[in-house]
């Protein structure tokens, strides 16, 4: 048994009772990383010296009451950390060793005295669903290292599943927290758009991106969100909405909860065993006194096309800042400035990033803007309206997180459209801006986890957490651990 099999609340008690020190926790992280990260490849950069110093300081502190006191955390590598290398898993930022400031979420974790263990692997600039687009060695799935961990927050999910950290932060633009959480058998929440500050998150698609927690259980997840949520003067899109105590929503009581199950989420293309695990979960909810009905989100099938037009368009603008002037790796083969921009970008960006910049630039270019970009913005409205309508009558929407469990490394990498289709059940949530969680709801014959997705109303993470927690407590999927080498 690892210390990371305990919840944050349990570890807090152990610290207060002097059974466990922060040094023990930090040591648990680095020992485990040394033991298994050669197989998992979740980490790009370690913060070992500072983290160990910090642990000593915390153990000596008089006040040990901060809500994440001494908890070892991993940070996705597109979230900026002051003086700690931040690469977005891109060659382009290979030398970005000395960022000037912390993302707001990193400052908030520090203010509650969590300890940063290191920076986590991902698909380059968060573009991908498998981690295979990392410019470094891609992360593998801890349940079976022949399989992908999902993406783009693959390192964030795999590090928690493998017991290398207690929790992590990821970012989710079209499913990038929930899909890897599902593939790795952990709990991942994409908050409502505007719930968490994006200041210091390297922007991919600014109208869709959100930072969220990945944990081993729902209670820990709620606890981390309490810390990172809230308005931030540095992000004008962060919302001025009070942050409730999410942990107080975890009552276990879902009597009378009204669940909508979109027929499109259990349609053809969803693997029978995934569908079965969701139907089983719905039975659990019935036994707890909730009710469910089949509904329709009629524009779901247009979500993938809408998403790729909008997110790539936004990305093409956001990634214009990588020009080899202020930071990053500059091409040495250029004779003039424009040539320097072009060569630095061509040498620095990987293929998927270039593909999306090309697609986005095309969709925004003169003559095509109305036909593609604006059309997609209009369809986005229809997709959002679908959710608004359902939420007039229901408390949450439930379905699978992904149509299938994790796929094998190399299986989908050659066909962008097949890879994109993998996000069909998570993308609509970002387009509508509503919160969604993925939590474990079963295992395939090969022993790979499935994720149950629970979607809520804008700013109603409390109900999402309450529903997720009640299901989790009634089942034991979250107690299973992957069998990597070494003690788990």
């Amino acid at each position, binding site marked *: 048994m690892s210390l990371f099999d305990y919840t944050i609340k349990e570890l807090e008690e152990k610290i207060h009772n002097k059974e466990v020190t922060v040094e023990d926790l930090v040591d648990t992280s680095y020992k485990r990383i040394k033991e298994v990260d050669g197989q998992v490849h979740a980490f790009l950069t370690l913060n070992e010296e500072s983290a160990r110093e910090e642990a000593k300081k915390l153990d000596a502190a008089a006040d040990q009451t901060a809500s994440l006191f001494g908890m070892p955390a991993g940070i996705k590598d597109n979230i900026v950390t002051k003086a700690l290398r931040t690469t977005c898993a891109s060659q382009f930022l290979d*030398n*970005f060793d*000395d*960022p*000037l400031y912390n993302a707001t979420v990193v400052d908030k974790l520090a203010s509650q005295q969590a300890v940063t263990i290191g920076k986590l692997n991902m698909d380059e600039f968060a573009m991908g669903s498998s981690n295979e687009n990392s410019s470094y060695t891609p992360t593998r799935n801890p349940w079976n290292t022949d399989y992908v961990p999902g993406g783009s927050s693959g390192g964030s999910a795999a590090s928690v599943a493998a017991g290398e950290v207690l929790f992590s932060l990821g970012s989710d633009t079209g499913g990038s927290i929930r899909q890897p959480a599902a593939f790795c058998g952990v709990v991942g929440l994409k908050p409502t*758009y*505007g719930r968490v500050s994006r200041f210091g998150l390297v922007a991919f698609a600014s109208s869709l991106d959100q930072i969220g927690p990945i944990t081993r259980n729902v209670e820990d997840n709620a606890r981390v969100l309490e810390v990172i949520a809230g308005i931030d*003067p540095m992000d*004008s*899109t962060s919302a001025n909405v009070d942050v409730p105590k999410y942990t107080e929503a975890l009552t276990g009581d879902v009597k009378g909860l009204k669940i909508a199950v979109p027929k499109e989420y259990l349609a053809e293309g969803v693997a029978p065993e995934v569908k079965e695990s969701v139907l089983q979960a719905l039975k659990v909810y019935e036994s707890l006194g909730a009710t469910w009905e089949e509904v329709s989100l009629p*524009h779901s099938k*247009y979500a993938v*096309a*809408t998403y*790729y*037009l909008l997110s790539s368009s936004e990305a*093409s603008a956001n990634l*214009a800042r990588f020009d*080899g*002037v*202020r*930071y*990053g*790796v*500059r091409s040495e083969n*250029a*004779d*003039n*400035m*424009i*040539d320097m*921009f*072009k060569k630095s*970008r*061509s040498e620095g*960006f990987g293929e998927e990033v*270039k593909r999306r*910049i*090309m*697609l986005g*630039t*095309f969709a925004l*270019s003169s003559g095509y803007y109305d036909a*593609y970009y*604006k*059309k*997609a*913005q*209009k*369809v*986005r*409205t*229809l997709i*959002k309206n679908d959710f608004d309508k359902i939420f007039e009558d229901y408390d949450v929407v439930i379905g699978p997180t992904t149509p299938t469990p994790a796929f094998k490394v190399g299986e989908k990498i050659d066909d*962008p*459209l097949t890879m994109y289709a993998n996000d069909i059940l998570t993308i609509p949530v970002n*387009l*509508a*801006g509503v919160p969604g969680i993925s939590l474990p709801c079963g295992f395939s014959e090969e022993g790979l986890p499935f994720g149950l997705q629970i979607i809520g109303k*804008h700013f109603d993470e409390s109900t999402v957490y309450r529903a997720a927690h009640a299901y989790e407590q009634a089942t034991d999927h979250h107690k299973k651990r992957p069998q990597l080498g070494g003690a788990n």
Partner: protein
Amino acid sequence: MADITKEQVKHVANLARLAITEEEAEMFQGQLNSIISFAEQLNELDTEGVEPTTHVLDLKNVLRKDEPKEWITQEEALKNAPDKKDGHYRVPSILE
């Protein structure tokens, strides 16, 4: 079926400030054509009179007073630059 030519692909690459080889131009031509063809399914929907969503929250302009605050120094701003001189970023010649 979308019909993006290789010339268009090169034009888009230039707009995006990407240098691409002939082979890449061909690869992107095929891939952009298939992605755009896929995206044309959106034309099945009548969106006449539908407002485009740029932002899911009902945000108004967020304003603050224009007051200077402590941020980074010139030295810090230059710290990660690949090339710098006398307190400035240095780039190759702008004129050919």
